[in-house]
C-alpha cells in the first residue's frame, strides 16, 4: 500500500546559488581520492595498494579489517600518487592520478533472468567485491551495511530537500533502466520491501514508474526528503532491527554493474552556493578533486568549500575531494569577522527560523539568502524549548535524546529513539539552536556509545 505522508514540521533553508540544470565546461579533473573517513564506522582500514601502483576503475584499493568481505575500489583508472596519513598514521586519503581514458576492471554481466536466478549469497558476494557495496548503509548507526546481515527492509529516498540540493531527476536523467535493474538486485537482498520515497510536491520523471518497489510520497519542508524520516513513518526501526538505505545513485551504479559488468563511478555533482560564479553541474567521478570547479569560479577569495550541503557537509580545502556519498559541493563566504552589536542589530540579511527581536527574515519567506560560516553566537546551556521538536518530523524528543547522550545514559538513549536517527535527521536542530550545540556531533557520539557497548 502506497502512502501519502504530509509532513508539516521542518524548515527549508533557502540559499542563493542553486545549480542551474546544465553541465558546465570545467577543466578535466586530474586527481581523485577515496577518503576512509567518509565511511563512518570503518574501524581498521587497510590499504591494498602502494604509491606508484596502477589501478583500473574497480580495482580494490582498501578494505576494513572488521568487515573483510567488502572491497573499496578505485573510482577511476590511473596511478596511485599519494597515500596521505594524518596524526597517529590515520589514513586520510588515497589519491589517484587519473588516466585520460578510463580503463575498467571487467566483472560478470547479468540480465534480468540471471538476477532472478542468482542466489542471495551470490548477489551479496558480487556486490561486495565490485566496490558498490559501500553504497548500502545500515540503520541504526548509519554505517556501511554488513553483508552477513539481512535487513527487514530497504529504503531509498528519491529526492533531496537539503539546502541547494541537486535535482535527482537531473542526476539520474536517462538512467531509469539501470535504476530498475538495481531495484531488482536489491529485492534479492531482503525478504521485506524495497521502499522508494518520492516527493509529493514535485513529481519525479525518472523514478515514478519504477516497478518492484513500494512507492510512498512525502510532502513538506526539509527534512521530508531524509530517508530516516521516511523510515520513521513507514516502518520504524526498533531495537534489534536492521534496515538498509541506499541513495538512488547507488542503485543506478548497481544496475550499471550488473548490466555492463563494470564499476562505473561517473556521477554528476552540483556546484552550488552564493560564492559560485556559475552554479552548474559537473560531470565527474566519485572522489573528484574540487580544484577544477573552484579555481576561477568563486566571487571572492575568502570562501569555504563544503563537500555536501551546508547542513550536513564537511569543510574541505580548495583542492580537497568530494566525499564518497556527496552529490554537491557548496561554496559560501567564510564568516570569520566581528560584528558590532551583531546580537541585537535588526537584520533581514541573515536567515532565521525564529522571530526574536530584529530577526526579520520571516517577512520574506521566498527570499534566498547568502549565509556565511559565522557561528552566530556562543554555546550555552539548553534554554529555549519546543524548537527542536518543531523542526523534527518524527515522534522523538530531540532535547531529551541529546541530554541522555550527554549523560551517557544508555537505557534512556535506547528508549528515546537513538536507533532511529543519524546526524542528518537532527541537522536542522543544530541550525536553529539558540544555544548553539554541536547537535550532529552529539548524535554521532551517542550512536558510537550504543554501537560499541
Amino acid at each position, binding site marked *: 500500500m502506497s502512502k501519502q505522508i504530509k509532513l508539516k514540521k521542518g524548515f527549508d*533553508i533557502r540559499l542563493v546559488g542553486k545549480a542551474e540544470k546544465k553541465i558546465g565546461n570545467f577543466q578535466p579533473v586530474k586527481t581523485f581520492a577515496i577518503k576512509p573517513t567518509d565511511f563512518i564506522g570503518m574501524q581498521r582500514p587497510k590499504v591494498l595498494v602502494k604509491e606508484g601502483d596502477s589501478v583500473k576503475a574497480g580495482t580494490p584499493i582498501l578494505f576494513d579489517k572488521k568487515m573483510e568481505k567488502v572491497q573499496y575500489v578505485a573510482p577511476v583508472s590511473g596511478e596511485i600518487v599519494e597515500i596521505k596519513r594524518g596524526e597517529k598514521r590515520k589514513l586520510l586519503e588515497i589519491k589517484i592520478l587519473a588516466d585520460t581514458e578510463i580503463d575498467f576492471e571487467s566483472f560478470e554481466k547479468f540480465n534480468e533472468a540471471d538476477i532472478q536466478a542468482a542466489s542471495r549469497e551470490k548477489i551479496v558476494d558480487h556486490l561486495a567485491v565490485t566496490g558498490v557495496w559501500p553504497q548500502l548503509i545500515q540503520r541504526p548507526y548509519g554505517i556501511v551495511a554488513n553483508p552477513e546481515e539481512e535487513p527487514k527492509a530497504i529504503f531509498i529516498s528519491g529526492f533531496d530537500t537539503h539546502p541547494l540540493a541537486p535535482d535527482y531527476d537531473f542526476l539520474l536523467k536517462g538512467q531509469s533502466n539501470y535504476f530498475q535493474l538495481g531495484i531488482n538486485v536489491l529485492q534479492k537482498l531482503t525478504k521485506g520491501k524495497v521502499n522508494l520515497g518520492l516527493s509529493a510536491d514535485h513529481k519525479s520523471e525518472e523514478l515514478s514508474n519504477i516497478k518492484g518497489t513500494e512507492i510512498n510520497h512525502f510532502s513538506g519542508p526539509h527534512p521530508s526528503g531524509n530517508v530516516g524520516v521516511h523510515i520513521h513513518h513507514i516502518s*520504524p526501526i526498533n531495537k534489534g532491527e536492521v534496515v538498509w538505505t541506499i541513495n538512488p545513485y547507488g542503485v543506478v551504479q548497481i544496475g550499471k554493474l550488473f548490466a555492463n559488468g563494470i564499476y562505473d563511478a561517473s556521477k554528476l555533482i552540483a556546484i552550488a552556493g552564493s560564492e559560485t560564479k556559475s552554479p552548474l553541474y559537473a560531470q565527474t567521478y566519485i572522489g573528484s578533486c574540487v580544484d577544477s570547479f573552484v579555481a576561477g569560479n568563486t566571487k571572492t577569495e575568502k570562501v*569555504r568549500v563544503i563537500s555536501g550541503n*551546508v*547542513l*550536513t*557537509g*564537511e*569543510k574541505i580545502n580548495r583542492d580537497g575531494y568530494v566525499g564518497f556519498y556527496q552529490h554537491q559541493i*557548496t561554496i*559560501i563566504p*567564510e*564568516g*570569520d*569577522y*566581528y560584528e*558590532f*552589536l*551583531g*546580537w*541585537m542589530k535588526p537584520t533581514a540579511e*541573515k*536567515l*532565521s*527560523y*525564529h*522571530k*526574536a*527581536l530584529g*530577526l526579520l*527574515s520571516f517577512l520574506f519567506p521566498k527570499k534566498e539568502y547568502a*549565509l556565511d*560560516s*559565522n*557561528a*552566530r*553566537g*556562543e554555546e*550555552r*546551556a539548553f*534554554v529555549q*524549548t*519546543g524548537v527542536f*521538536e518543531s523542526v523534527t518530523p518524527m*515522534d*522523538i*524528543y530531540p*532535547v531529551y535524546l541529546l541530554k541522555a547522550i550527554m549523560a551517557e545514559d544508555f537505557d534512556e538513549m535506547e*528508549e*528515546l529513539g537513538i536507533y532511529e536517527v543519524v546526524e542528518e535527521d537532527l*541537522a536542522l536542530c*543544530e*541550525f*536553529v539552536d*539558540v*544555544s*548553539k550545540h*554541536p547537535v*550532529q*556531533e552529539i548524535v554521532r557520539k551517542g550512536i558510537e556509545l550504543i554501537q560499541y557497548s
Partner: protein
Amino acid sequence: MEFLRNLLDKQKPLFQKGGKLENLYYLYEAGETFLFSPKHTTGPRGAQVKDAIDLKRMMITVVIAMIPCLLFGIYNTGHMHFLAVGEEASFGDKFILGLTLVLPIVIVSYAAGGLVEATFAVIRKHPINEGFLVTGMLIPLVVPATTPLWQVALATVFAVVIAKEVFGGTGMNILNVAMTARAFLYFAYPAQISGDQVWTYLGDKVPIDGFSGATALAVAYQSGQEGVNAVSNLGSHNSAVMEGMFSFSNMFLGFIPGSIGETSTLMVLLGAAILLFTGVASWKIMVSAFGGAYIMAAVMQLLAVNEYMALPAHYHLVMGGIAFGIVFMATDPVSAAQTESGKWVYGLLIGVLTIIIRVTNPAYPEGIMLAVLFMNVFAPLIDHYVVKANKKRRLQRATV
C-alpha cells in the same frame, strides 16, 4: 567602531592564557561579545551555517517585552503617590518621582545579580550567562516601589546563588529565579512586601483622609470576611482619593496600588503580544494558565459560600500579579515544562492553583507566586510522564 575593536584587541592578551588578568578572562569576554559578535566560524563537520539567533537576542527580546510594564510602573508609582497625598501633579512630575524610586531598584538588582554572575563566572570559569538580563529586570517589577534597596540586593543575591548558580547556572535551574527572589522577600521580610502600607510611596507626606493603601485582592478578601458584595465593595473602595479605583476597567488599565510592574494588565498583555509574536514565550502556557485561572474562578463562583468566592471570574484575571506572573514568570522556558503537551498541563495547573491559593488560603492574598514556584517543582514530573508516553509508544511498536 574600528576604535573600539582596536581597543579590545589591544587588551585581549592581558586576559588570555598567560596574561596578567587571565583569571578575569570571562569578564573581558562578556564585554567583548556584548560589543561585537564573535568571529567564530562553524566547525569542519556538521552545520556549516547557523541561524541568526543567539541567547543574547532571545533574552533581550524578553527585556524589551517588559519595557511597557516598566514605564507604566514608573508612572504609576508617581501617580499613586500624588493621588494618596491629594496633590495635583503633571505627568512629568509623576514620572520623575517614579523614576527616582524605581530606577535605584533596577540598578541595585542588576548590580547585585551581575556581581554574583561575574563572581561565579570567574570562579567556575564559564562565560557569563545572558539569563540575568531578564532576571535583573523581573525582580524590580515584582516588588513594591517602597522596598528597601538592601532588601532588593539581598533577595537578588539569594535568588541568583540559591536558585540558579548552585544548580549550575542559566539553563540548569529548577525554580524561576525572579520568583524565588520575591518569595525570599515575602517570607524573610513580610512587613515590607505585604499588608496595606507598602504599595504606595508616601514619602514624608501624610495621606488624605479616607485613603486606604490596600490592594484589590485584600479588599476582595475583606468582602468575603464581612459578607458584603465584593464587586460593589471594590467599586466604592478608596472613593476618597479616586472614584472607581477598583472598577474592572481601571484594574485592567492598572492605575492601582501594587508591585511596580504588575498592576497594568494592559501593559502585561502588550508584553505578551511581543513575546508571542516573536515566539520567545510559549503561547500554550499563557493560554492554558489564563484558561485554568478563569475556569477555576468560575468554579469558585459557582460553589460560592462567601462573597469573595462569588467574585466574578474575570475580575480575578486583572487583580493582583496573575497576568504578570503568567506572561513573564510561568513562561520561563528553563523552569517551565519543556514538552509541548506538558506545557498545557503546567499552565493549566498554574492558573488553577493561583485561584485556589487566592480564594481559600487566608494567609496569602496572592497565589501566583506560590503557584509558579510549586509548578516549577512539578514541571519535570509532568515532562517525565509525557516523555514516558513517547517511550511507551516506541516499545509498543516493537511488539507489533
